[in-house]
Structures are given as C-alpha cells and as structure tokens.
C-alpha cells in the first residue's frame, strides 16, 4: 500500500510487473533503467539465477514530482515467472499499488499467459486483495516476432473482468510501448491514491467549522 511521510514530503508507490516466464518483465525494467535520466532513477537491483533468470525480484526506484509538494517514488518490481517460484511471487505482491501484466504474444505462450494471469488472481487473494480493486494494465509484448496471436485474441484471453483493462502492444527489447505503459500505470495509481485520500464532505465541513471556531 502507498506510504506517505509528511515530514520528508515523500510518497512511495509499489508497482509490480507480473507475467509468465520470459515474457519480458525484466527487459521492461532494464530498458527503463537505461533510458531514464539519472536524476529520476535509483540503482537497479536484480536477484537472478546463474542462468540470468529472475530468482526473487528485480527492483528499480524512480522519482517524479507529479503530486503537488511531494516527491513521488515509484518502486518497480518484477516477479520470477517460473512456476516453482510461486512463494516469492506471492511475497513480492505484498502491498502492491499497481500491476502491469506482461503477456508473451507468441501463439505457443498463450497457455502460460492464461496460467500466470490465474496465478496472479490466486496470489492476490492470499493477501485478501482482488484485481478489481487495484489499478492494472496489460502489456502484449514481443509484437515484433513472427507467429504472434492477434491482440483481439489476447484481449479476450487476458481481459475477463467486468472493468476491462487497457492494453499496450509492446516490444520491450526495443523500448516500444515501455515508457507509455509505465506512465499510464503511474497515473492510474496516483489517481486511486488521491481519490482514497480526499477528505470527505463531512470532514471538510468539520475542518472548516474548527478553523472558524479558532
């Protein structure tokens, strides 16, 4: 969940890139780390196996001044896609504010995509959370490869909720659609945060009455 320090004027948001093995989650973060100016990015941390596969998570902190008077910190995490690392996927989802589901567009990955999406929903339930309540986006990655499924099919497969999620067609190795995905999920996360922290009408009335009394 978002974390606010009113003393330091900082707000932290946690965004998790989720998806099946080798769909491009780490590549998204690597690209962002490479292209973002140094004033906005922190060090990227990767916990990988010897084979360069994500073992625990990748982590990239980015900063912006999008909320008035505060430094907004977006902490980007990936999860390990491999089936055997479900415990760690579940741990990384703790306190998530926004999700990007990175699907692999190749036809032979559709079953993996569907399984991973189902696994995401199960793991959120273990934290008493539901996808419906969390800002999330879909990324249909590797659109440059031959033998990719049509976006309409992927949308049908991975967009089953009543409120349909927005999707982006991406080629993360070339950075196509990567920054757009990030900026959109950040905006969605901030919009939800601001909505949750708006003073209710009752509170505003009470506050106004309090200052008049003083």
């Amino acid at each position, binding site marked *: *969940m*978002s*974390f*606010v*320090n*009113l*003393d*330091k004027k*900082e707000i*932290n948001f*946690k965004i998790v890139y989720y998806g099946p093995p*080798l769909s491009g989650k780490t*590549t998204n973060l*690597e*690209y*962002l780390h*490479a*292209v*973002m*100016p140094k004033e906005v990015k*922190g*060090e990227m*941390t990767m*916990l990988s196996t010897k084979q*360069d*596969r994500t073992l625990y998570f990748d*982590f990239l*902190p*980015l*900063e*912006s*001044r*999008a*909320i*008035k*008077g*505060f430094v907004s*910190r977006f*902490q980007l*995490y990936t999860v390990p896609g491999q089936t055997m690392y479900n*415990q760690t996927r579940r*741990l*990384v989802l*703790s*306190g998530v504010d926004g999700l990007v589901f990175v699907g692999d567009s190749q036809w032979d990955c559709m079953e993996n995509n569907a399984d991973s999406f189902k696994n995401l929903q199960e793991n959120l339930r273990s934290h008493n959370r539901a996808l419906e309540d969390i800002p999330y986006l879909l990324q249909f990655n590797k659109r440059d490869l031959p033998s990719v499924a049509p976006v309409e099919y992927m949308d049908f497969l991975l967009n089953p909720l009543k409120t349909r999620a927005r999707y982006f067609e991406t080629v993360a*190795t*070339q*950075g196509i659609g990567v*920054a757009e995905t*990030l*900026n959109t999920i*950040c*905006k969605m996360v*901030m919009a939800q*945060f*601001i909505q*949750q*922290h*708006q*003073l209710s009408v009752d509170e505003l009335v009470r506050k106004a009455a309090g200052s008049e009394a003083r």
Partner: protein
Amino acid sequence: MVVTVEQSRLLNKAVADLVAQAEAEEAYLTDFDGNVLAQASPHDSRSVQGIAALSAGAFSATRQLAGLMGEAMFQSVYHQGHNTHLYMQSLASQFLILVVFARQTTVGLVKLYVRKLSEELDPLLRELAGQTAAGVGADREAFALDPAGRLFEQRPASPPAAPERRAPP
C-alpha cells in the same frame, strides 16, 4: 500508511539514539514492504531504497522459511561480514529495524539497544500498523496532482542498445 511530521521526528530520534548508544554505523526503520520510516545514515534517502527493499525481501523469505519449520516467525536475522555486519529484527509484527555495525561494537550490545528501542516504539508502531488502507489520521492532507508536474520522459539522446532477448533454457 501515513507517517506524520511528529511521528517521523520521534522515529528518527529513536533510531539516531540507537546508533549512538550501540556504537553502530547506521540504522534504518522500515516496514515489511521496504518503505523507510526513519534512518540514521550518511546515505540519501534515494540510495537507501535498495537496501530497504532487499532487506525486506530477505526478511520475508526468512519468515516463509520459519513457517516451513513450524515457527510463526524468526524474530531476527544476523548477517556477519568480514568488517561490516547487519542485524535485522522485526518490531511490532510489521516493521524491521536494520542495524549496520562494525568492529567497534558487538552484536550483543546491538541486540540490547534494539530491545530497548522495540519497547520504546511499540505503541507508536502499533498505531501506525493499525491505520486503515487509506492511512487517514488527524493530520491527513489533501493531495492533488501538480499541473506542472511531469512523469517519466526518456532521455532525448539515442536509446541504449536493446537488452538481448533471453533464449528459453
């Protein structure tokens, strides 16, 4: 979770006192998600994020390990280095204190002052842990988007060489 100005100052003072009394190098108070509530350290808050995220991740993994061994939780983890050591302990079931120390002190002394800190901060940390999802409190502020604020733009220079797509094993 929302930490007010007053709470933040109390937490920072307590962490600074811990470092001084235990003769440690630096210390951080984080939650289990890796957010830094207070710190006594020469590093700026941006570079501390990696330390906090990794420590929270390591401690989470340890909690899972404890579960597999029939323990509710391992309360503390000690990483012993050649020159520098790290002691982590959970506080109020949702927070972590990380203490970095060197040869001039001992893990026993660090544990002693961490216990004192734990007792001192317990009511405040439980109050923070009890906040609702929206983290409301008497000091809640209204937040608004900055019209001049920007999100993330790529550097205008040419993009980097694309990371190579990894082949399936």
